[in-house]
């Protein structure tokens, strides 16, 4: 074999091996969490709230954190959707291809890059400014801000692919811009809206840095928006931080629950967007 051919082969092997390393890292992470988590995962861990000595090795479970995270994730996603959906519809129908739209998109790209700890610090500042205490509501507001750029980016991408002929047909029938946006464009983009919302939910529920100062942490299941709420990422973090081995082991059970929620969300978004996509022009 000539030197050229040998080098050619070498690049193929190196690049395939690099891909292999990345996939192996993913497999290693999933394997660690599943094998270690499965050992400490049991019915009482996911159905009970922590007993008083939970963080020193006592009994109980993390039901407070599971429910807290789900409430927080759903609340934040709905709030982000309430702000994000009108925004993408506006960008698509009213401000389409304008300078204003490209400025807003640029700012949203910048917002997308803001680290979650900065959202957390800002959320805390806002909370103090408004005289609120660490609560489910404060957590929801902070996580919603964190989710907003992720959701908007995903939805905007799909909205832009809706053909412009549809707008023209709708205007030709005498519809206003608002009617076109809601009844035509939004309906066409439903798969994208669902994917965007579920993607944002998955990111929001897994983020710890944004809820660290805003949602608080408690052993009780929150009953109202003004009560503090425990969250799964923080439950994992705090259990990992204890010096007790059995508590640390349970952190992997909690991590497995969190990974499963994220996985189910991601699979659901693929299935749903394929289903809903059948009726799109």
């Amino acid at each position, binding site marked *: 074999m000539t030197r*050229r*051919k040998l*080098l050619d082969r070498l*690049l*193929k092997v190196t*690049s*395939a091996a*690099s*891909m292999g390393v*990345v*996939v192996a*890292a*993913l497999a*290693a*992470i999933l394997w*660690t*969490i599943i094998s270690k988590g499965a050992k400490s995962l049991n019915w009482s861990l996911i159905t009970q709230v922590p007993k008083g000595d939970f963080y020193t090795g006592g009994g109980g479970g993390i039901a407070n954190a599971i429910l807290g995270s789900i409430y927080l994730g759903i609340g934040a996603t709905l709030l982000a959707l309430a702000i*994000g959906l*009108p*925004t993408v519809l*506006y960008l698509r129908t*009213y*401000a389409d291809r304008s300078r204003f739209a490209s*400025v*807003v998109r*640029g*700012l949203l790209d*910048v*917002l997308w*890059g*803001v*680290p*979650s*700890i*900065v*959202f957390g*610090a*800002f959320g805390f*500042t806002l909370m103090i400014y408004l005289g609120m205490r660490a609560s489910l509501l404060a957590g929801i507001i902070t996580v919603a*801000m964190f989710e*907003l*750029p992720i959701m908007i980016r995903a939805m905007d991408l799909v909205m832009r692919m809706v053909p412009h002929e549809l707008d023209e047909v709708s205007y030709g029938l005498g519809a206003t811009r608002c009617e076109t946006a809601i009844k035509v464009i939004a309906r066409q983009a439903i798969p994208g809206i669902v994917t965007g919302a579920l993607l944002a939910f*998955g990111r929001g*529920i*897994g983020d*710890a*840095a944004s809820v*660290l*100062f805003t949602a608080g942490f408690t052993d009780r299941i929150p009953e109202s928006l003004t009560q503090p709420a425990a969250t799964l*990422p923080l439950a*994992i*973090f705090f259990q*990992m931080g204890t010096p007790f081995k059995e508590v640390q082991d349970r*952190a*992997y059970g909690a*991590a497995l629950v*969190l*990974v499963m929620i994220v*996985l189910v969300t*991601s699979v659901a978004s693929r299935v749903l967007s394929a289903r809903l996509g059948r009726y799109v022009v």
Partner: protein
Amino acid sequence: MLATTLFSGMLVVVIAVALYARSRPLIASKSLSAIIFGANWKPSAGEFGLGPFIIGTAWVTAVAAIIAVPLCIFASIYLAEYAAPRTRSILKPLIDLLAGIPSVVYGAWAALVIVPLIADHLGPYAQAHLKRIPLLNAEYVTGYSVLAGGIVLAVMICPVIISVAEEVLRAVPQDYRDASYAVGATRLETITKVVIRRALRGLMAAVVLGISRALGETMAVLMVVGNVAALPKSVFDPAYPLPALIANNYGEMMSIPLYDSALLCAALVLLVIVLFFNVAARLVLVRGASR
């Protein structure tokens, strides 16, 4: 609709202004350079030097970039140039999955796997064989180190770099490759001399985006990096990055004057650094697209 659009667009500006307003008291009482380059962090004595934390962030991010960049560039070459469509359709969701794993889960994995690996194998090896090499010489190995933070960050930024880099490579028109093959170039020659040359700006942007993600990552790094506010001398020493500083101290700051101002100033510094990299990546991409 206009109202929500304005809100979404202005949010990042509001965040920056709010953080600046809250860090004013500190900036007013000390000079900005004393805060950024100050080497001492003693809140009870009124000293708030962010130097060690900024350098800690730089160390961890640099280690992550050194590990992740070559790996991701090769992996994206594989995805874009070699992988069959079916293989690609299996691998891409896996990369997305890697991007979706929560940061604490990465941290929990690294604490269980990477930290002991360094403490039991890499560290002792370095102590025995790498004594003379600066940055790699280990004095006192606990495993909780710049290296552990760098490795976990490297894994975390892989999906960001790979997905952007693959898109950039695939955007190079097939005609260029065909023309290159037609004059007798091998695949390697086509990729290095035609495809990569054409996609260079985009690849740079992918790397910078990955780095800006690494700079702000909090929980996973916090769990394995040791959190000691001293300047690391080697990758086996602990460090204390900016996000970890904010996360660790926020709860207990109320009683000390200027403490909250200092932490929000740290958040502002972090925001400025991250945004600088982010905007740089976008400019490179936009410039590249317009040529």
